[in-house]
C-alpha cells in the first residue's frame, strides 16, 4: 500500500481542486439553485436501444447510469457506495450474498427485487441474446461463450436476498456492480424488450421525460420523484443534446446554449481556460493510451523484441508531447492503469522505462541490433485518420526517429474500421495505437481484458504465464489491499515485457457556463449531474 499513497493523494488533490474550481467551499454547504431547473449538456445518440446489458459506449452509458440505480454507484473518486444493495458480502471472494434495501421501486411502481437483478443479468449473459456486455458475466457460474447456458451461479433466496457463485474468486467483485451491465430491470421489460429499450423504465435519480428521446437530436431526463438513494438530484432534470462534432458543442457553450460540456475539442485546448475563466476542468480520466508492437513481427519478439520495445519507450519524450501537442490535457503515463483508480502508482519498479532517456534507448537498441540487425527497415505506427490522432502519432514517430536514428513514420488508416481489420487479422506492419477506457474503477479492468492471453482486447499476441499467475492471485486475494499489491506486481512484469508501450492518460477537459455551479466530474469523465445546481 505504500506505493499507492502518492496515487491516492494525487486523486484527493485533484478532486479538491475540482471543488475549488466549482466555487464550492465545502461539500456540506446546502445546495442552492432552482430545483426545477433543467441542465443542458452534450452527448451523442446512443448506439443501441437503451438496454443496460447492451450499452457499452459513452453516449448510451450516460443515460443508463442516470436512469438506473444498481446495487452500488460510484462517487466522484471512484469509490463504491451502496444504492439498492444493503450489503454485498463474501467469506471467500467466490460466494457472494447480496441483500437489498427495501422500498426501492421502478418509476412504473414495480418493486425492485432480487428477481429484477437476476433476470436482467441472466438475460445479458445468454449467448443468443447477443448483448454486447455479456462478457461482464463471464466469471459467474454457468456462463459460456460458446453455447446458451443459464447462469446457474445466481440464486434467489428471497425478494431481498440473492447469492452469486463465481467461477474464480474475485476480491473486488462489488467494484464492478456499479457498471451499466449490472442494472436491474422491471418485470414489464420482458413483455417487449425492444419497446422497453426505446422507452426504458428505471429506478435511478432521473427518468426519461415523456417522448423524451428524440433520435439524433436529444434526450430529456427529468427527476424521478420517488428516488431516495445517494445520488438525489438537486436540479429538475438534464437535457442531453447530441452533437456530431465537439466544435459545435463548444460553440454552443460559448454562445450560452449549453450549460456543461464534458469534452473540449482539440481546437480549443489553447483557449478554453481563458474562454471560461474558473469554469473549466482538466483532470486525469480513467483512460489509458498506448501503442502496441505485435509479437508476430520480425524483430519484435523474444529478447530482441523486449530490448527494442524498451528502447522505443525510452526514446519518446512524453512530457514534451503532452505539453506541446495536447496543451497539458494529457498526463504522461507511469503505469498501465490511470491515476483516478485506487491503487494507481507512479513508483512501480521498472517504471523508469517510461522516462525519456535517449542514451539508454540508443544503448538498448544497439544491444538488440547485436542479436539481429534492424537494418533500414521503416518503423511505422498505425492509427485511424478519423480519430484526430495524426498530430501525436507524428510527434511520437519524430521523437523515435530523432533518438534512435531510424526511419519512424505514422501509418494512417482512413477509418477505425480499416485499422481494426488489420489488427484483428494480424496484418499490421508495425506498431498500432491502442487505448482503454475503464468500465469500472478497478486496476483489474485495465489489465485482464488487455494482457491475458486470448482476452478480447489482447490483439497483438502477448502471452505471459507469469503475469497471468500474479493477476489471478490478485483477483482471488482476500482483501482489496492485497489485491492491489498483486496488481501492481503484475504491472511490474508488464513494465519489463512492455506488451503495450504506455504513453499517457487522457484527461477529461470540460467547461461550464456561469448559469450552473457545483460541477464535479466523476472518475469516468462524466459530470455528476445530480449535484449540479442551476439558477
Amino acid at each position, binding site marked *: 500500500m505504500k506505493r499507492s499513497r502518492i496515487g491516492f493523494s494525487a486523486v484527493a488533490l485533484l478532486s479538491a481542486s475540482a471543488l475549488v474550481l466549482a466555487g464550492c467551499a465545502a461539500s456540506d454547504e446546502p445546495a442552492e439553485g432552482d430545483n426545477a431547473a433543467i441542465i443542458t449538456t452534450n452527448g451523442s445518440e446512443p*448506439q443501441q436501444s437503451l438496454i443496460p446489458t447492451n450499452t457499452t459506449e459513452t453516449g448510451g452509458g450516460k443515460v443508463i447510469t442516470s436512469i438506473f440505480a444498481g446495487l452500488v454507484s460510484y462517487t466522484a473518486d471512484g469509490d463504491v457506495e451502496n444504492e439498492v444493495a444493503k450489503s454485498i458480502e463474501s467469506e471467500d471472494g467466490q460466494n457472494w450474498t447480496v441483500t437489498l434495501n427495501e422500498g426501492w421501486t421502478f418509476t412504473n411502481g414495480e418493486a425492485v427485487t432480487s428477481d429484477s437483478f437476476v433476470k436482467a443479468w441472466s438475460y445479458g449473459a445468454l*449467448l443468443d441474446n*447477443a448483448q454486447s456486455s455479456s462478457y461482464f458475466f463471464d466469471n459467474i457460474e454457468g456462463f459460456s461463450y460458446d453455447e446458451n447456458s443459464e447462469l446457474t451461479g445466481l440464486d434467489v433466496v428471497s425478494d431481498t436476498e440473492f447469492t452469486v457463485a463465481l467461477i474464480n474468486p474475485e476480491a473486488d467483485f462489488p467494484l464492478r456492480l456499479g457498471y451499466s451491465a449490472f442494472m436491474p430491470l422491471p418485470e414489464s421489460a420482458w413483455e417487449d424488450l425492444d419497446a422497453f429499450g426505446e422507452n426504458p423504465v428505471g429506478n435511478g435519480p432521473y427518468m426519461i421525460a415523456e417522448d423524451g428521446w428524440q*433520435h439524433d437530436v436529444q434526450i430529456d431526463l427529468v427527476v424521478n420523484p420517488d428516488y431516495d438513494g445517494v445520488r438525489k438530484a438537486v436540479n429538475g432534470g438534464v437535457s442531453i443534446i447530441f452533437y456530431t462534432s465537439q*466544435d459545435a458543442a463548444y*460553440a454552443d457553450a460559448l454562445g*450560452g446554449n449549453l450549460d456543461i460540456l464534458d469534452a473540449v475539442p482539440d481546437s480549443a485546448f489553447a483557449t478554453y481556460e481563458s474562454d471560461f475563466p474558473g469554469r473549466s476542468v482538466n483532470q486525469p480520466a480513467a483512460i489509458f493510451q498506448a501503442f502496441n508492437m505485435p509479437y508476430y513481427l520480425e524483430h519484435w519478439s523474444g529478447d530482441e523484441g523486449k530490448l527494442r520495445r524498451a528502447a522505443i519507450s525510452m526514446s519518446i519524450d512524453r512530457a514534451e508531447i503532452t505539453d506541446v501537442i495536447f496543451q497539458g490535457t494529457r498526463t504522461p503515463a507511469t503505469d498501465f492503469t490511470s491515476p483516478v483508480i485506487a491503487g494507481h502508482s507512479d513508483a512501480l519498479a521498472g517504471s523508469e522505462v517510461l522516462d525519456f532517456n535517449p542514451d539508454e534507448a540508443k544503448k538498448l537498441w544497439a544491444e538488440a541490433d547485436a542479436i539481429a540487425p534492424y537494418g533500414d527497415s521503416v518503423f511505422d505506427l498505425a492509427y485511424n485518420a478519423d480519430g484526430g490522432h495524426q498530430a501525436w502519432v507524428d510527434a511520437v514517430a519524430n521523437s523515435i526517429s530523432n533518438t534512435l536514428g531510424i526511419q519512424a513514420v505514422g501509418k494512417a488508416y482512413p477509418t477505425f474500421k480499416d485499422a481494426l481489420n488489420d489488427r484483428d487479422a494480424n496484418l499490421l506492419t508495425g506498431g498500432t495505437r*491502442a487505448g482503454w477506457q475503464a468500465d469500472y474503477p478497478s486496476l483489474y479492468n485495465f489489465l485482464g481484458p488487455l494482457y491475458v492471453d486470448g482476452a478480447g482486447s489482447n490483439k497483438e499476441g502477448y502471452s505471459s504465464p507469469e503475469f497471468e499467475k500474479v493477476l489471478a492471485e490478485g483477483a482471488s486475494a482476500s482483501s482489496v489491499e492485497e489485491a492491489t499489491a498483486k496488481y501492481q506486481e503484475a504491472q511490474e512484469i508488464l513494465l519489463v515485457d512492455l506488451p503495450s508501450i504506455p504513453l499517457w492518460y487522457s484527461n477529461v477537459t470540460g467547461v461550464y457556463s456561469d448559469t450552473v455551479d457545483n460541477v464535479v466530474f466523476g472518475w469516468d469523465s462524466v459530470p455528476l449531474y445530480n449535484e449540479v445546481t442551476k439558477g
Partner: protein
Amino acid sequence: MLWYAGKRFLQMIPVFFGATFLIYFMVFAVPGDPIAALYGDHPPAPGVIETIRAEYNLDKPFIIQYLLYIGGLFQGDLGTTFSGRSVTDVMAQAFPITARLAMLALAIEAFFGIIVGLVAGLRKGKLFDASALVISLLLISVPTFVVGFVLQFIFGIQLGWARTTVSGAAPWGELILPAIVLASVSFAYIVRLTRASVADNLGADFVRTATAKGLSRRRVVTVHVLRNSLVPVVTYLGVDIGSLMVGAIVTEGIFNINGVGGTVYRAITLGEGPTVVSFVAVMVIIFVLANLLVDLLYAALDPRIRYAN
C-alpha cells in the same frame, strides 16, 4: 416536350438500379467488419458479434445482401441502422431538414448572385464591379468551414443574433445563418457567371437591335439581356441543387444540423450499407430530376432551344 420528359423519366430506372448496385458494392468492398468496429476498444464476445452480423445479413455474400435489400425496398422496407432505427425514419427526419436548408441557400445565392452579377456586368470596370470581383474571389478561395466558423462566432457568439447551432426541429429562422454559409461559394460563382454572361450579351446583335428599335433600357436589360444571360446560371443552379442537398457535410457539422450529408458520412464510416444506399438512391433521383428541370428551363429561357418529338 411531354414525350421528352417521359423518356427522361424512364431513363431513371436503369440509373437507379445501376447506382444502388454500385454503391452497395462499394460499401461492401470497404475492408473491415462494421460490427466489430462499432464497439471500439471494448469488443463484445465473438459469439455476440457473429449473431449481430447475421442479424444484418453481413455474413452473406454480396449479391444476396443486395437482393435482400432490393427485395425489402419493394416492400417499403429499407432496412435498419446499426442502432436499430428504420432507415425510412432516419430519411424522413434528415431529408426535410436538408431540403429546407438547400432551398434557403439556393434562394439566397440565386437572388443575390444574379442581382450583384447583373449590376456588375452592366457597370463593367467600375468600382462596384471591381469590388464584386474581389469579394467573390475571396469567397471562392476561403474554405467553407472558415466562413462557417467566422459567421458562427460573429453572429452566434459575439452578437447573439442567431443561435450558435440549430435545434433539433431546425425551423426556417435558425437555418438562415447556415444557409448563408452554404450559399457563399455558389453565390460567388453565380456573381461571376452572371456578370460575364451579361457583359457578353450587352454587345450581342439582338441587344443592339432591341436598343435600335427604341426599347427602353430597362426593358432591354430585363427581357433581352438578363433572360439570355441566365442560361449558364440556370445550368449551374441545377447542378448546385444536387450538391447543396448532399454536400452540406461541413456546414451541417459546424451548426450541428442533423441532415443528409452528415448522416451519409456517418453511415459510410460505420459501413451501414442500407442507410448509405437508400440515401444515395434518393440523392441520385434528386440529381436526375434537377437536371431534367434545368433542361426544360432552357427551352423556356432561350427560344432557340426546342425539344422535338
